[in-house]
């Protein structure tokens, strides 16, 4: 009997059962996608299959690799013989899954030595490491580099080489591309697929993103609240989902919806028209920012009219967040001018008032003070704008939160609810410009859609201008009227959302759009 057989009877945590019974098999050389949102139990499932569940968690069941049975509740000593040889786990974030103080070569070499069970001569090791690097399309000199000297995509390749150096029968990839830029995601997934096929190795690909697995896995398993709700061949599930949850996931997936008509496209075709006659609320001209010798912004122009949503897209390191921070006064620009409502603003925070602009950050888990109640957070923000503290219920209602949220602390709220609080806090001083810096990137796709709807509604109701920074073209497409594409501190392309994203004229934009669509075969079955 060959291949992988998994029969999990259940995973229990300190707070009770976390994952119900689930069973699946993966043939050698085949791949299975496990799809679910955060909290669905997919990461626990992955960790239970390498015996690395966090403290307080326990799994019952058995993993069979080519007929060899490995009970999931085995001791750590027993798991050590299984990990690496039979199963290897690739983690989400290549920025943390490699040791920052060791060069890449040794990190791959450790896996090689662990498999050999003895120390290997240095020459032999160097050759083997170079071979493993070549497999993931990296030059041999990467072995001498420290992880921080490599890009995110290259780091994940090193992590893949390290995970595969023990030649496991099953590779579990836990959200392997979530931390990467769009243009790297497709490459990494295709590389994983190719390696898996070449080696006849089984792969379990864990993702929250249905669009990502299209064409890259044979089968798919959809999980929700610790239970499997749907399973089948990937193409079949994507084209004719049976369960309502799967349908909701597909509908909420911004990538799969990238081709869908936008509501206002149907009405006015170009939302730019609606605000074309209004003077810009804020305009930045020739903004330059350097950190040491590195020029992060090299003469960037941007203007936003009241009631307009301007999307700024670019990959990490493009300078888009620095631009937002210069406009907000959190960084001091080295050159150029920023004019708000006709008056120039000096660099820095002192020249700005809370009523001019507010910012909503990426991570609602760290941007709210965990020791304060939601009511106290909002009262403080209302006070900054000179408003009365009894307006807290009205602020909660504005962002669609129940009135009893005021007595809670951030830890008692979900990620989406926290981001609503962050938005309410930003709106409390009645700003005329709202800056959203990757404000939905940390949220699940369904919650993302809700927050985007909320921002759109607030724009209409309050007539505020929104600067929307994101690396995710599909998200920007949902909300922005015009789009500015930033690359290495320059504006590459600027225009209406439909024009830039549907008929990009610059090569870099085309690359971004292609990566966001993750063009693969079978693209047309949905949408």
């Amino acid at each position, binding site marked *: 009997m060959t291949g992988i057989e998994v029969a999990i009877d259940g995973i229990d945590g300190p707070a009770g059962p976390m994952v119900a019974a689930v069973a699946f098999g993966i043939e050698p050389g085949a791949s299975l996608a496990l799809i679910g949102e955060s909290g669905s139990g997919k990461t626990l499932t992955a960790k239970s299959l*390498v015996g*690395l569940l966090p403290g307080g968690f326990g799994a019952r069941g058995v993993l069979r690799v080519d007929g060899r049975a490995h009970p999931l509740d085995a001791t750590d000593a027993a798991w*050590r013989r299984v*990990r*690496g*040889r039979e199963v*290897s*786990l*690739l*983690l989400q*974030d290549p920025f*943390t*899954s*490699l*040791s*920052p*103080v*060791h060069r890449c070569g040794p990190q791959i070499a*450790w*896996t090689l030595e*662990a*498999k050999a069970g003895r120390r290997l001569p240095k020459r032999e090791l160097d050759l083997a490491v170079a071979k493993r690097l070549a497999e993931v399309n990296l030059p041999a000199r990467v072995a001498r580099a*420290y992880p*921080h*000297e490599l890009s995110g995509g290259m780091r994940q390749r090193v*992590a893949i080489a*390290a*995970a595969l*150096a*023990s030649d*496991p029968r099953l590779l579990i990839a836990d959200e392997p591309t979530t931390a990467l830029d769009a243009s790297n995601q497709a490459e990494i997934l295709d590389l994983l697929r190719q390696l898996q096929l070449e080696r006849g190795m089984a792969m379990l690909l864990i993702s929250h993103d249905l669009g990502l697995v299209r064409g890259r896995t044979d089968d798919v398993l959809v999980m929700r609240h610790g239970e499997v709700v749907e399973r089948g061949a990937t193409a079949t599930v994507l084209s004719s989902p049976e369960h309502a949850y799967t349908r909701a996931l597909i509908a909420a997936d911004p990538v799969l919806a990238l081709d869908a008509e936008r509501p206002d496209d149907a009405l006015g075709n170009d939302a730019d028209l609606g605000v074309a006659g209004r003077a810009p609320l804020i305009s930045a001209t020739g903004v330059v920012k350097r950190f*040491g*010798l*590195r020029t992060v912004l090299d003469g960037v122009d941007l203007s936003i009219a009241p009631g307009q949503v301007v999307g700024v897209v670019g990959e990490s390191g493009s300078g888009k967040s620095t631009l937002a921070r210069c406009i907000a006064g959190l960084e001091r620009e080295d050159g150029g001018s920023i004019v708000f409502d006709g008056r120039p603003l000096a660099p820095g925070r002192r020249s700005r008032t809370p009523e001019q602009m507010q910012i909503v950050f990426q991570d609602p888990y760290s941007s709210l003070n965990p020791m304060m109640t939601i009511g106290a957070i909002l009262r403080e923000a209302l006070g900054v704008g000179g408003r009365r503290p009894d307006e807290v219920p009205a602020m909660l209602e504005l962002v669609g939160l129940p009135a009893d949220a005021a007595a809670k602390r951030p830890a008692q709220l979900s990620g989406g609810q926290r981001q609503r609080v962050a938005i309410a806090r930003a709106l409390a001083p009645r700003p005329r410009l709202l800056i959203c810096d990757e404000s939905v990137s940390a949220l699940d796709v369904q919650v993302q859609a809700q927050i985007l709807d909320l921002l759109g509604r607030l724009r209409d109701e309050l007539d505020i201008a929104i600067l929307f920074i994101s690396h995710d073209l599909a998200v920007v497409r949902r909300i922005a009227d015009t789009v500015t594409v930033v690359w290495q501190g320059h504006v590459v392309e600027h225009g209406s959302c439909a024009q830039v994203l549907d008929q990009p004229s610059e090569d870099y934009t085309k690359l971004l759009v292609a990566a966001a669509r993750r063009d693969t075969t079978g693209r047309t079955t949905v949408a």
Partner: protein
Amino acid sequence: MLAVRVLGTAAILFVLSIIVFSMLHLAPGDLVKTLLGTRPASPEAVAAIREQYHLDDPLPVQYLRWLGGVLSGDFGESIRLQTSVSDAIAARLGLTLALCGLAFAIALAVGIPLGVQSAVRAGGVLDRAGTTLGVIGLSAPTFAVGLLLLYVFAYYLPIFPVYGGGRGPLDTLYHLVLPAVTLAAGLGAIVLKLTRTAMLRELDADYVTSARARGIPESRTRRLALRNAAIPIVTGASLLLTFLVGGTVLAETTYALPGLGTLLQDSVLFKDLAVVQALTLLVALVIAMIALLADLAYLMLDPRVRDQGGAA
């Protein structure tokens, strides 16, 4: 970078010398009376002493005279010992250095392995024992630990000598064991805590999970985590060296060791200004050097900081 640092250190030493100089003058006691002791204080003798040590000059002049001497390499005469300050310090420096070095080595040799084991089996017997020992080591005053060790290991069980510095390298080492252990108790407790905390955090990091998930043996994984934890441990431990400077005064007094700590104590009591000034500056200089070494160690241990330093 380095030039700024040297200038900054020089400025700190200058300000410190003024503060110490003024404080010693403000403190109660009279050098003349101390020098004369029980002998009758005839006006002539008093005048002669005041004349010899320029005690009638205005304070700024006294300070500038001292400063001029230091700048030309002359740290003055010790009134109490009647030798040059440089000789007085040089004669005792070796013992104090040996004591501090031994104490530091013991603290590291015990604290780091114990901290690692405590973190690896957090909540286990060793961890709880280590935490208890750590609390005792941290909270017990140095002189109390010293007296206790003296009673147990020099009086009831006469294994170690009660006082003195010994003759010859081996005998000195033998004499230094108890004082070093005394000093190392508090130090080792902090090293243990530092190591345990840093290791716990590193063992929880993604790269450790990732290493375990690809079958890398536990011993290698632990070394990997320790190498990462070394950054906070080394920077923390080097700051602890400065703690030794204060502790050595207490330990040397308890064990009657002729080191710099007892020299400093006696000189302060005697108002032997030149010695106190020179010792204060020496201590400040050593602390500045340690801080510099800690920063260099940081550069050596963390390639990320190294690259930033190279770019800036």
